[in-house]
């Protein structure tokens, strides 16, 4: 049988109501960088991602205090045209960036298609399809976009 707290029903009891909104990392929107590969063959692009949350659909701001939140990437299948994967963090603007490069002085020889998944604090926020070919890396976002 549940015990009542001694102060239950006492005039000393008080309460406070607060409105809080839970936000969950949901999706990202990136810029559209140009190709900065200057070696003659391939691509080199740096994508800058802004993080958005649900349910408000708002962008995470630098003032939200979420800088240093871990950002991870994974590839399926693993990338044979490059090397390993790694991690980064949200910067002080609550953004992160991802450089994708396959740049060479002669035509590239590697071909592969991989799915890249980006996650913020463990929440998957984007998948991209990366197609490696003789012309570099073709990047296609698979969303989500909202």
């Amino acid at each position, binding site marked *: 049988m549940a015990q009542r707290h001694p102060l239950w029903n006492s005039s000393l009891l008080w309460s406070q109501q607060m409105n809080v909104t839970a936000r969950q990392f949901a999706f990202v929107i990136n810029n559209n960088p140009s190709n900065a590969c200057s070696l003659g063959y*391939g691509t*080199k692009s740096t994508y800058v991602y802004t993080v958005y949350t649900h349910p408000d659909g708002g962008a995470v701001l630098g003032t939200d205090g979420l800088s240093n939140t871990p950002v991870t990437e994974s590839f399926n299948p693993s990338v044979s045209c490059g090397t390993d994967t790694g991690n980064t*963090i949200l910067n002080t603007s609550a953004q992160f960036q*991802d*450089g994708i490069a396959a740049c060479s002085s002669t035509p590239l020889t590697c071909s592969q298609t991989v799915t890249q998944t980006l996650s913020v604090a463990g929440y998957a926020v984007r998948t991209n399809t990366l197609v490696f070919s003789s012309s570099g890396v073709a990047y296609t976002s698979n969303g989500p976009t909202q």
Partner: protein
Amino acid sequence: MKPPPLATIFAFLSLLAFWQSMPREQGKPSLAAPPLNQRVEHFDLNDAILRDGVVELSSNPIEGLHLGIEEILRENINDNPRTQNPHFSLHLENKTVREILDALCDSDARYMWSTDGLSISIYPRATVGDAAYLLNQGLERINLTNVPDPDEALTPLAKLLPDEQIGYTGFGDVQYANPGRPLLSTLRSDSLSTDLLNTWVQGAHGFGRVARGRECLLFRGGGFRSRSNN
């Protein structure tokens, strides 16, 4: 002897310079000791290949650690490295970076490691003394100034070696230590790879960001650039 086409630079310059890394409170080593003497409380690898060990080591917050790996070429760059390299497991406690490097190179004896200025290089044992091996080729002179990133550093190199494939690939948070800073000056190189890489690292070190991630001059290491939060 000229290497086979697939063995040209782009494929085998998996020369990574890892800097460090993910914030971790546990196992944080003393910053007073040289990187090789700093201790890592726990170093665990399960069914790993050598590059996994390098990634794991570089993910520890070891001040001043510049770690690079030059991987052995696969016959076909599309081959899965996990099917081409020996697998091993390591479970080390309270070992120095030096001891961990020894353990890694014992686990895959095709590799050895050495220090080169500020950087630690892990490379194929079989290439030592092979003058034909591209990364052992000497350059009489290369002039690099105001280099903002590997791309522009490699352009003059590609001009010097028109018959070779010079390139890099990579994924990650591509930020270079200090774009626009006169990073590399006139360089006389007896060892193409290590001198260039080392100079690059030194330039970054001067900017005080050596513990902030990973970069590589000739072949940009894959993955996001790992960073500590300080």
